[in-house]
Each structure stands twice: as structure tokens, then as C-alpha cells.
């Protein structure tokens, strides 16, 4: 047990609870704290039943125990509005923060594309982009590593049941954040993101379509091989990541039609959108944990930045 990195989960909703399942399976991570703000929260009750310490006093309720309980990594699955404050308080104590909100104060992290780079830089806060970003940016990166992509566009379709109130209230955050990450992580010169919510019953499994416009004639064989290799990388942490159709080559257009089925830990299998976020976050934490356990990385408190008056 002592050979695991202790983790805290901020936000006891569906995402936080699903993460607990994934962390409990991990050989290097150990979920020890769940943080909420509502004493009657179902998620906090579930966490207690799983033997995890809980507080309903927000991150402030966790801070006094960070050192004693050896918490080194925290996952924030709350909202963009409170993330900055949560992150500041935790990183000041030397806790590395993985951000599952759209706040994106740290660099975007899409594990098979740029996790190693973040490891190298010893980042103390990384952002997991969006569900649509996790599902599509690996494909865009797989194309842009073969040849320049002038334009990358994604269409993420999620089932109505898996679209939480946060996503719905801030749907523009999804399109903006995903488009930015298509450019910064995917390597497309210009990015565009579209999200569709579909209410069909039974719920449809998450679908993700990637359309890239390459700047020169696409090298079909090289792009196909690169996409296949990338899909294998994603399948290491999301086994239900599947290419349904494509790549279609049509002039300079390259289109790939993906499906993301979740593992069905706590969340239903159709909500691959939520699963790919929790799986990518857990994957990211594991890589950092391995660095910490091997002694190659030492977490250091991030000094508070002097606030302008």
C-alpha cells in the first residue's frame, strides 16, 4: 500500500465517483479523500462506503489533512469557476492538480500526444481539455505528425443522458476549449469544434468525427498507419475507442469516424465521453505517480503569486 501515491478527488459527482473506481484499480494510485460541499451528497456517501475520507467543506476541509495523509495528486472535477482557487490552495501545499474542468489554467494534456512533454516539464497543473478533445485530438495529432494540417474540425455527439448540467450551462466552453486544443495539441493551424446532444433511447454511444484539411495531397498510407498506431495508444486506457469508418480521403479532406464506449465502471458504457475524461485523467496521474515513485520527480510547493491590489 505504501508504494502508491495518495490522491484526493474534488467533486463527488459522476466523474469523481467513476475516478474512484479507476484509481482503486491502479497499481500506483490510491484514492484517500473525496471533497464535496453538500453534506447530503450521494457521492460523498458512496465514497465513505468505499472507505474514503470525506469532507463537505470544500477544498478548505481537505487542506489541514494534506500533509498528514500524504496527498500528492488531486483531481478537480468541480467547475471552471472554482478551479483556479482550488488549484492555488493545493499547489501551494505541493499537491499536483489534474483539472477536469474547462478552466484550463494549466497546459492542455492529451495523454498519447503530449503527456511525456508535461512530465518532462514537471507541470503542477494540467488540464484535460474536454471529452470531445480527448476523443479526437489524438487523431488530429496522428495526421498532423505526417503532414501539415491547415484546418482541423471535430464533431462530438454525446447522449443526452450523459450531458451533465455543467456541460449544458456552458456549452460554449466546450467549443472554445476544444477548438483551442485542436490547434495547440492537435497541431492544426485552425481548429473548430462542434458538439451535438442526442436524446435517442437507448442512449447512443459517444461518436466523434474528425475532419482534417491537409495543406498538401494527403499521404494516404502514412496517415492510415499513423492513425492506427495512435488508436492503439488510446486503447491502452480506453479499450472501447474504435474506428467505425475511415479514414476517408477526398481531395485534401481526411475524415475519421470514431466511437467511444466507456468501461462502465460507475458510468454507463454509452457515456464514453465521461469515461474518456476519467480514463485520461487517471492515465495522466499514473504517469506522474511513476515519476514520483521512482524519485525522478519531486513535487514542490508552488509559491503563492503576489496578487495585484
Amino acid at each position, binding site marked *: 500500500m505504501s508504494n502508491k501515491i495518495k490522491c484526493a478527488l474534488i467533486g463527488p459527482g459522476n466523474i469523481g465517483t467513476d475516478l474512484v473506481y479507476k484509481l482503486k484499480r491502479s497499481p500506483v494510485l490510491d484514492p484517500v479523500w473525496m471533497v464535496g460541499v453538500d453534506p447530503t451528497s450521494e457521492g460523498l456517501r458512496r465514497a465513505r462506503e468505499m472507505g474514503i475520507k470525506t469532507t463537505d467543506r470544500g477544498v478548505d476541509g481537505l487542506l489541514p489533512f494534506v500533509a498528514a495523509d500524504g496527498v500528492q495528486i488531486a483531481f478537480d472535477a468541480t467547475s471552471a469557476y472554482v478551479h483556479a482557487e482550488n488549484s492555488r490552495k493545493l499547489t501551494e501545499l505541493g499537491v499536483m492538480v489534474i483539472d477536469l474542468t474547462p478552466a484550463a489554467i494549466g497546459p492542455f494534456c492529451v495523454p498519447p500526444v503530449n503527456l511525456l512533454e508535461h512530465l518532462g516539464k514537471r507541470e503542477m497543473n494540467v488540464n484535460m481539455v474536454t471529452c470531445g478533445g480527448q476523443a479526437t485530438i489524438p487523431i488530429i495529432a496522428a495526421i498532423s505528425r505526417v503532414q501539415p494540417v491547415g*484546418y482541423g*474540425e471535430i*464533431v462530438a*455527439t454525446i447522449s*443526452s443522458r450523459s*450531458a451533465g*448540467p455543467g456541460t*449544458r*450551462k*456552458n*456549452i*460554449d466552453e*466546450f*467549443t*472554445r476549449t476544444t477548438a483551442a486544443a485542436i490547434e495547440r495539441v492537435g497541431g492544426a493551424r485552425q481548429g*473548430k469544434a*462542434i*458538439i*451535438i*446532444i*442526442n*436524446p*435517442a*433511447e437507448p442512449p*447512443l454511444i459517444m*461518436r466523434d*468525427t474528425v*475532419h482534417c*484539411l491537409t495543406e498538401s495531397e494527403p499521404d494516404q498510407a502514412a496517415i492510415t498507419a499513423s492513425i492506427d498506431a495512435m488508436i492503439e495508444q488510446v486503447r491502452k486506457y480506453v479499450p472501447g475507442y474504435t*474506428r*467505425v*469508418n*475511415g479514414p*476517408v480521403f477526398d481531395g485534401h*479532406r481526411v*475524415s475519421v*469516424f470514431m466511437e467511444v464506449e466507456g468501461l462502465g465502471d460507475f458510468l454507463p458504457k454509452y457515456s464514453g465521453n465521461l469515461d474518456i475524461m476519467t480514463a485520461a485523467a487517471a492515465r495522466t496521474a499514473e504517469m506522474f505517480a511513476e515519476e514520483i515513485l521512482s524519485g525522478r520527480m519531486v513535487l514542490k510547493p508552488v509559491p503563492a503569486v503576489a496578487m495585484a491590489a
Partner: protein
Amino acid sequence: MTVKAKKILVHDMTLRDGMHPKRHLLTLEQMKAVATGLDAAGVPLIEVTHGDGLGGSSVNYGFPAHSDEEYLSAVIPLMRRARVSALLLPGIGTVDHLKMAKDLGVHTIRVATHCTEADVAEQHITLARKMEMDTVGFLMMAHMASPERLVREARLMEAYGANCIYVTDSAGYMLPDEVMEKVGAVRTALQPETELGFHGHHNLAMGVANSLAAVECGANRIDAAAAGLGAGAGNTPLEVFIAVCIRMGIETGVDLFKIQDVAEDIVVPLMDHPIRIDRDALTLGYAGVYSSFLLFAKRAGKKYGVPAREILIELGRRGMVGGQEDMIEDAAMTMARQRGLLMAA
């Protein structure tokens, strides 16, 4: 309810829904010619944007000949009486597009969601109302929700600040009885001062009949397009609807001969193909499929050797909603593979 002497507002779709059959390639000159003709004919409200609304420019829906900014900037200064509206689908366009439209002088914003997903429109409707725009909540594919569910979603949009709610028959699937039931239910549920609209497609030739049914049940805004230029078999043909309104004593303020001439002399000549109920457009209405899927299905059908009609039926069976144009090529490929026309992925 009698419709005689009832005043309604007709809202022109030629330059927005009509962008679908034009593959979003209307020129600025064409836009200006149609818009000034509509204005002169007394059409009070004219929608101008990419067919899929602000920000619709994409591989998925088609790149337009000009940006939304360019189209709006070309049309708005020319309008003598008519106001201009813009469509916005949350998930495609954002509040940034909304602010741009407001700055260019757009009077009416229509925030469109699938009929069961009104809560994704909260931030856009709230902002539009705050900016004192005529703010419309547009519930698409209304045939896919029960009257009770439509009422619930309409009330949400009203609560966010929409001063008008639309029941939108995006698939041209509804028959007059269903229109009466749903429009009537929403009318009863909303505040009396909240306006109510209906947007029809002519895939089952019900555009005019459904619009009348909606007026009878309390709708006071009706969407229509000159010569029917719109997705699928087009929208309710504006000039026909105006003639019927005059016969029935419904007041629209639109000049019949002038709008006939706009349809005949300006809009029909710019069509790439006749807007009519061919077998594929009919299938949209019959199977309840989003009307703008039509040309995509025809193209995918041709490319993969699967009849467009069968692709559309499959999309309907899968419960696809507006905006899922990407699933057309996907479905066509899967069907072609099942039929041995395409190698495994």
C-alpha cells in the same frame, strides 16, 4: 378559433434555410437582390446566415461563399422596413457570434436546440435578452417530443428570457392534427405575452396547411421562404401562404404580386435544382429526418452506391438529430460494407 382579421408576422427563410439547397454558396449580389425584393414586398423579418446558423461554416455543414459577417453587413444597410434575424445553434455557434450579430444590427436572434435539449440555450438566450434583442427559442425536430415535453422545454426557454418560442417541424413530418395539438399545448402553457411561432418544411406538402393549423392554435409568427427555397422539399412557400392568408382574412402586410415576383423572377432562377418533393425529400418527411440531410445523403448515396432514400431511413431509425451531418457518410459507408460494396474499415 377564427383566424379572420388575425395579424401575423411572416418570417422569411430564403436567405438562411435557403442556403441549404444552395450549399451555402449564395453570392452577396444574390442575397442583396432577394432581400431588397422581400423588403419591398413588405416582408417584415428576414433571416440571413449560413444554413446552420452563425458559425455554421465547416467541413461538416459546408463552407459558405462568404462569412456571416459579410452577408449580414451586405443586407442590413439596404433594408428600408424589414428587420434582419440570425439563427444560432448552441454547440455550433457561441455567444461571440451572437455579439457580432448584434453589433452588425441584427434585430432578432433565434436560438435553436433539439426539442428536448432547451437547457443548452440558457447562456445565449440570457445574453440576447440582456442585449435587448428580439429573442426567440427555436425547438427543432418537434415531432420527436410529446406535447408535455415540448411544453417543459418551451417554458425553460421562456424562463431564460425568450419572448417568442417556435415549434419547428425540421423534418417536415408533422401533420396538421399534430401541429394543432403541440402548438396548442405550448400556447396554453406560456405567458400570454410570449409569442409563438411555427416553422414548417414542405416534405409532405403540408407547409401551408400546417402553418394555418398553427395560426389557428395561437401562433403569430410563421416561417416561409420565397419559392419555398429551403432544406428538403423546402419551407412553406411564402407566396402561396400569403395568397391563402389573404383569402382567409389573415393580415400579413405582404403584397401578393410583389412576393410572387420575388419568388419567380429572383429566387427560382438562382436555384441549383428544382425545390420539389422528390423521393428523397419525401422520405425525409415520411421517416422524420432533418431536412438539411437531403443533399448530403444524395452525395453519399452516389459515392458509396447506396440509395439516398435508404440512407435517410437508416438515419431516422438511428434517431439522428439536427447537426449530425457527419453520420450520413458514416452510415452510408457502414451500409455499403454490409452490402459488400466497400472493404472492411
